[in-house]
């Protein structure tokens, strides 16, 4: 009976793991773990940093002071939010909350970007987390004003 071989009545027939087997397992397991970590790091270093093209978002006149505008940068899958404070200064951030990736919304009266999912809150001036679960700041989108147009030129993580 197979199960009786696995669960023998006698102590000395029990298949206990030897010290050498355990040491072998630990060494090989640790080695495998270390090499896979190195491989992942190598792939991460080799990966090309996505290009950040200059993209025209909108005309400055479309965003009056105290309002915001959602746009996509650098690709159509990356939602961002352009905020113009009351003094007329433009700032732009990724719209993806750094906690669990919900979309943040602009609260002009508090000068914050609020995440409704877990009541997280970021400053709309520099993207720092102010309250709630997020601990990392929102990536900032660099904005340049070229004539009447607003142009996104890069990401500052």
């Amino acid at each position, binding site marked *: 009976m197979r199960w009786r071989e696995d*669960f023998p*009545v*006698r*102590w*000395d027939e029990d298949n206990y793991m030897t010290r050498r087997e355990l040491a072998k397992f630990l060494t090989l397991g640790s080695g495998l773990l270390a090499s896979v970590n190195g491989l992942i790091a190598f792939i991460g270093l080799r990966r090309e940093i996505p290009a950040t093209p200059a993209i025209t978002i909108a005309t400055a006149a479309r965003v009056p002071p105290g309002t915001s505008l959602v746009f996509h940068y650098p690709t159509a899958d990356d939602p961002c939010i352009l905020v113009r404070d009351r003094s007329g200064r433009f700032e732009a951030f990724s719209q993806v909350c750094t906690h669990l990736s919900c979309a943040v919304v602009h609260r002009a009266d508090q000068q914050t970007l609020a995440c409704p999912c877990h009541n997280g809150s970021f400053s709309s001036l520099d993207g720092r987390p102010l309250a709630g679960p997020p601990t990392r700041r929102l990536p900032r989108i660099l904005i340049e004003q070229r004539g009447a147009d607003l142009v996104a030129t890069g990401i500052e993580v």
Partner: protein
Amino acid sequence: MSELAFFIDYSRCIGCQACVQACEECDTHRGRSLIHLETIERRDSVQTAPQVCMHCEDPICARVCPADAIKQTAEGVVQSSLKPRCIGCSNCVLACPFGVPKYDGEVDQMMKCDMCYDRTSTGRRPMCATVCPSGALAFATIDEIMRTRQGRAINEWQFGDERVRTKVFVLVPTEVVRVTVPVIPMSSLKRRPPLPDPYDVAAILEMH
């Protein structure tokens, strides 16, 4: 010198309960006696008999355990149930032909004699054998027993069709080769109501 072994000489038992008390003192199960002191035909006789675990070579208690809780050491000592494994099903209680394992509801576990494994594994004698004043329980070499006792030490039993060999020896008259216990078939029990036990002293006292 031959190996130390456990010998039971039922005819020498005087029923003093010293073994029962000594068993309670054992470190592995302190306060709980695991030896059974049986009365034999109590109405007519004062004969008693100590019953320790016989430590079968092929322990049926361990064979029937569904939780793999009863283990046998390399020396052939059948251990008490392992606390983390025993599920209290009492399969072993029903299976043992000697009636040794007992289910203890308080700890929800089967406990039985393990021949004082903490003592015998380091060369000391089991608690019960150290205190028995009449030598009914003895932990000695076979040579010593043969020199000092009459009769023969055997370790073979026959229960119906099943032959059992045990690690513990019993002393029997010289002409006995193995102890044979006939088994009453269940079918014969069904046909008639069970007879009252003539040696149930409590029942006898109630009648008078």
